[in-house]
């Protein structure tokens, strides 16, 4: 079996979404459920096993509510695993130095850079990507606000911007303009769509407060 789907799917992705379907088809070659976890199985106080250079380690990532148990090399970033192993290409590659925000995802509900996170470090964590904000074929609230406010030009930075906004609004449901600017400071937009991006975040906050 490719995936151990015994976990309940997250409320945002009931059943098999289009993305989820593509994902589960696309990862057949690398998903491995049976391999014993090399690193996470060690009980505290005993010496953990070292994954040798060039070796693989089994991790379990809950991505958009779906559990993927797979082998990864310790040097693989979460960004690489999401895009190239799980086919979730909504998360973008920019600088790979923690400077641009294109790769922003939520880890346990908080915005982080997938390029600066090793996949082995995300073992057991709950990861939400831009695909995970969809409800079936419908855009999530923050995504819809970005579309409504024309908060992009080329759109490359948009998934990262939306995830940063999502994280901000979970901590601060009614941000001021200044708090929006600070909250979005880790995401660059090459096209300079900032004014519209900030408006979209404010709109998303409004919509969410109305329970949408």
């Amino acid at each position: 079996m490719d995936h151990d789907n015994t976990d309940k799917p997250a409320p945002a992705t009931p059943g098999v979404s289009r993305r989820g379907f593509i994902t589960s088809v696309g990862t057949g070659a690398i998903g491995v459920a049976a391999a014993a976890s090399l690193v996470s199985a060690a009980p505290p106080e005993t010496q953990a096993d070292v994954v040798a250079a060039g070796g693989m380690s089994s991790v379990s990532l809950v991505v958009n509510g779906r559990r993927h148990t797979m082998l990864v090399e310790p040097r693989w970033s979460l960004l690489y695993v999401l895009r190239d192993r799980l086919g979730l290409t909504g998360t973008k590659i920019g600088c790979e130095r923690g400077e641009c925000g294109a790769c922003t995802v939520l880890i346990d509900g908080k915005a982080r850079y997938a390029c600066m996170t090793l996949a082995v470090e995300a073992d057991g964590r709950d990861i939400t990507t831009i695909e995970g904000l969809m409800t079936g074929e419908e855009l999530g609230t923050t995504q819809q606000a970005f579309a409504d406010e024309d908060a992009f030009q080329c759109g490359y930075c948009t998934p990262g911007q939306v995830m940063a906004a999502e994280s901000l609004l979970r901590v601060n449901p009614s941000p001021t303009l200044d708090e929006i600017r600070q909250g979005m400071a880790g995401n660059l937009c090459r096209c300079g769509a900032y004014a519209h991006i900030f408006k979209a975040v404010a709109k998303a906050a409004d919509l969410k407060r109305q329970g949408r």
Partner: protein
Amino acid sequence: MLQTFAYVRAGSLNDAVKQLDGPGARVHAGGTDLLGCLRDDVMSAEKVVSISRLDDLRGITPAADGGLRIGALTTIADLAAHPGIAEKYAALAQAAAVVASPQLRNQGTIGGNLCQRPRCWYFRGDYHCTRKGGDMCYAIGGENQYHAIFGGGACWIVHPSDTAPALVALDAKLRLISAKGARMVPAEKFFVLPDENAQKENVLAPGELVTEILLPPMPAGMKSAYRKVRARGSWDFAMAGMALTLTMKADKVADARIVLSGVAPIPWRLQAVEKLIIGQKLDAKLMTKAADLAVVGAKPLEQNAYKVAMVRGIVAEGLEKLL
């Protein structure tokens, strides 16, 4: 793709210390600086020892002496949001709040922030500079607008951390541990000038870990603040900054600690200025004198003389604001 390395997730502090005892091992906390350094070949790693799951090293708790104990794995975001820190150690809360970006604050730890490598573009670039074991500092005669004006010599980096100057000003202590045992080091003694050792920024021995940071109880009436000047409003490292503590008794300065960021290879303490103002009434005249004294001994490079004026302004303004 990064070079391959062995990887181990430590299950206990003992385990981490054992795994780090040997050549080629690197500590991974949040990874936000380590991964950048590995990607840019600034550092190599044969083995990455992750301490990220050592939950005992996370969190802020009261210390027996009335101060606070901050676990090295506490994230910068948690530090910035902690009410006790904001109330009693404002300089640290303010410094944490202006570190990097929200994403990096969610992931980066205070231990990693103190141990991060410098941002000099020659060091991070393809130059075999003094800090990488070469025999030349390319900032001398190079592009040096963001480099040091104090404490240079063999190398002119500035220390990149915002939390470090705050911890020095607040007289924090760091607890270090290695296979050889544990020791306490005042934050001020943790950092190392290039003339002592141009290849490392701190006193950590190979394989040695920072496990916690201890803030002393706050003296009654002490106020503190951190001010950072950066080239743009979103994330950026300090061009210059200042952590300041001030304790007043009646209308006189009873105690003060002034530590600059962004201008030297270590958090740069202005002891002469502290001496000047302690015991005095802090009026406009004395503030101007303090600001002038702050830059005595500055040695700007070709492109960073603006930092001299900047420091003068930051010191004068900071004293006035906190009074």
